[in-house]
């Protein structure tokens, strides 16, 4: 009995599978294996912390990509929602002492509520005007964070002591068969599991009715209205989902760092996220993760290797003409420009080209 070819699609259900081909399933297994094994191979705290920050950034970038890449709404206010999530965790996880799933959910809900409050103001704006209004959000936020002392601790910041216990397992100190895993290892698993979950939820969103509506609004909002998409509602909803995810990223950020100060939620953070979604590829979930790995790891690596990069000051007033902070800013700017000009589809576009090349080989033209 002849079996159908492994890539043959025979019904719509099969056509809709996320990992429909053997190659895709192999890729999924490989990713899961790397996820499980990596922290036991890379045990050094520096590298683990870089990977954790990258993962947190990837979550936030998926959120921004839903708004900017899929719905076409450029937002420079992402840093505001990330900060809100972090302070929310300082209260929900620290003061109230809620367990891990609850302080994450609380952050998501606060993020969604703030997004829902601000979303309606963005309805009549698009393009540069929307960017400017959301830019204002960052500065309003900075003012709030510095002055709402009971919540944020003012200029000096506040500590975030959120519990990392998941049921009987404390992720800060996992014990399996006599082997004890460190806080950084536990956090790696937590953060990257959440990256996978967020990516899955976002992917499901964009391949079903609401996600298609967002993309229709991005491409042609009036035609979208005429075929029955209520553009205003969807824009607000996109804002809410995006800020909810940003707040989750902020919650993880605060809980991992255990301390947050108002200086962290500045314009540079927003621009870093814009750089990530552009470098990774607007309108792709995978691209947001790739971009986070590529761009999100840069500041930490530059900081670490500043002594060998020529011209970088390793200390205030030291040798060199550019500080680590300024170099980061410059690199984000250069990356945005280079990718917009050379590869507007980002890293995801490059990856797609490589994949197509091998799939159609030897007829790659």
């Amino acid at each position, binding site marked *: 009995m002849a079996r159908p070819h492994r890539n043959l699609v025979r019904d*719509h259900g099969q056509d809709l599978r996320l990992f429909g081909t053997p190659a895709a399933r192999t890729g999924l297994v490989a990713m899961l294996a790397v996820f499980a094994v990596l922290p036991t191979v890379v045990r050094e705290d520096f590298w683990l912390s870089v990977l954790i920050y990258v993962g947190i950034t990837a979550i936030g970038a998926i959120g921004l990509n839903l708004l900017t890449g899929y719905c076409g709404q450029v937002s420079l206010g992402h840093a505001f929602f990330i900060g809100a999530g972090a302070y929310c965790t300082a209260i929900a996880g620290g003061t109230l002492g809620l367990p891990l799933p609850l302080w994450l959910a609380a952050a998501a809900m606060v993020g969604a509520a703030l997004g829902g409050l601000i979303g309606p103001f963005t309805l009549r704006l698009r393009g540069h005007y929307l960017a400017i209004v959301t830019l204002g959000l960052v500065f309003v936020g900075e003012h709030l964070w510095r002055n709402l002392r009971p919540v944020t601790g003012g200029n000096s910041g506040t500590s975030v002591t959120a519990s990392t216990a998941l049921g009987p397992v404390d992720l800060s100190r996992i014990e399996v068969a006599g082997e004890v895993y460190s806080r950084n290892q536990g956090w790696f698993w937590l953060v990257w599991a959440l990256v996978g979950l967020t990516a899955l939820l976002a992917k499901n969103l964009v391949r*079903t*009715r609401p996600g*298609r509506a967002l993309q229709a609004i991005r491409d042609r909002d009036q035609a979208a209205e005429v075929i029955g*998409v209520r553009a205003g509602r969807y824009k607000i909803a996109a804002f809410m989902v995006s800020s909810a995810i940003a707040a989750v990223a902020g919650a993880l950020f605060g809980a991992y760092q255990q301390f947050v100060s108002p200086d962290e939620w500045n314009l540079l953070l927003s621009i870093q996220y814009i750089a990530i979604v552009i470098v990774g590829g607007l309108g792709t979930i995978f691209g947001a993760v790739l971009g986070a790995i590529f761009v999100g790891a840069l500041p930490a690596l530059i900081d670490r290797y500043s002594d060998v990069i020529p011209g970088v000051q390793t200390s205030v007033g030291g040798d060199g003409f550019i500080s680590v902070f300024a170099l980061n800013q410059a690199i984000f700017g250069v990356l945005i420009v280079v990718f917009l000009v050379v590869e507007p589809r980002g890293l995801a576009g490059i990856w797609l080209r490589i994949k197509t090349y091998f799939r159609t080989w030897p007829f790659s033209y």
Partner: protein
Amino acid sequence: MERVSAPAPAASGQASGPLLAVADLTLRFGGVTALDGVGFTVAPGELLAVIGPNGAGKTSVFNCLNGVYRPQRGTIELGGQSLIGRAPAAIAGLGVARTFQNLGLFPQLSLVDNLMLGRHHLMRTGFLAGMAWWGRAKREEIEHRAAVEDVIELLELEPYRRTPAGLLPYGVAKRAELGRALAMEPRLLLLDEPVAGMNVEETEDMARYLVQARRELGLAMILVEHDMRLVMDLADRVVALDFGVVIAAGTPDEVRDDPRVVEAYLGCGA
């Protein structure tokens, strides 16, 4: 200029009455009167053509029917329900579909996704159900994908399923837009110059698809078109507009021979 009221449709003897009744429609932009007291009716299953020189107000009529423009005066009733003041998305939900003069496809989405968007108002999945995928979202995707496949088959769009709409050849894109409108399962289909810029063969193909769609789905259509041969072949009745006023209405032959229509097109008394 004398105003001619549209004759009653052929189906007016039936108890159901007209599907669409437009009366005294007046639309002004500042000092410019785009439509002035326009009235016509469309019976269920009927194809009404709206003709007229450039700037006569044909697309403005569509924009009023769609809710994109709000007329200053007049009534628009679809199956007894007023459309005035309703949002475009709500009107789509009542069963009015439309194609655009210069393509209203979503260029970055694949053809299948474009057609699936036509089914948007028939689907219910919200943000949370969509994220969860398993359950309603998946069931709905499969169900409506099957309906979209019927349209793909009807219009012979099979080779282009995964092609981003922005990369479709012009003639195919026009057909895909018709497909998206048909996927909406409308009661009334508004076609804004479906064969503009097409060669003779593409025009004949489109005419064939329109005839086929009408026969199989039995929906009423309003056709705005400059290709007089297509209008005369397809239309049950024709309404001619000039400077926002109905100057003639009747069967294709009556309207073609009407001296006011000839004058509007040729600019002199014939």
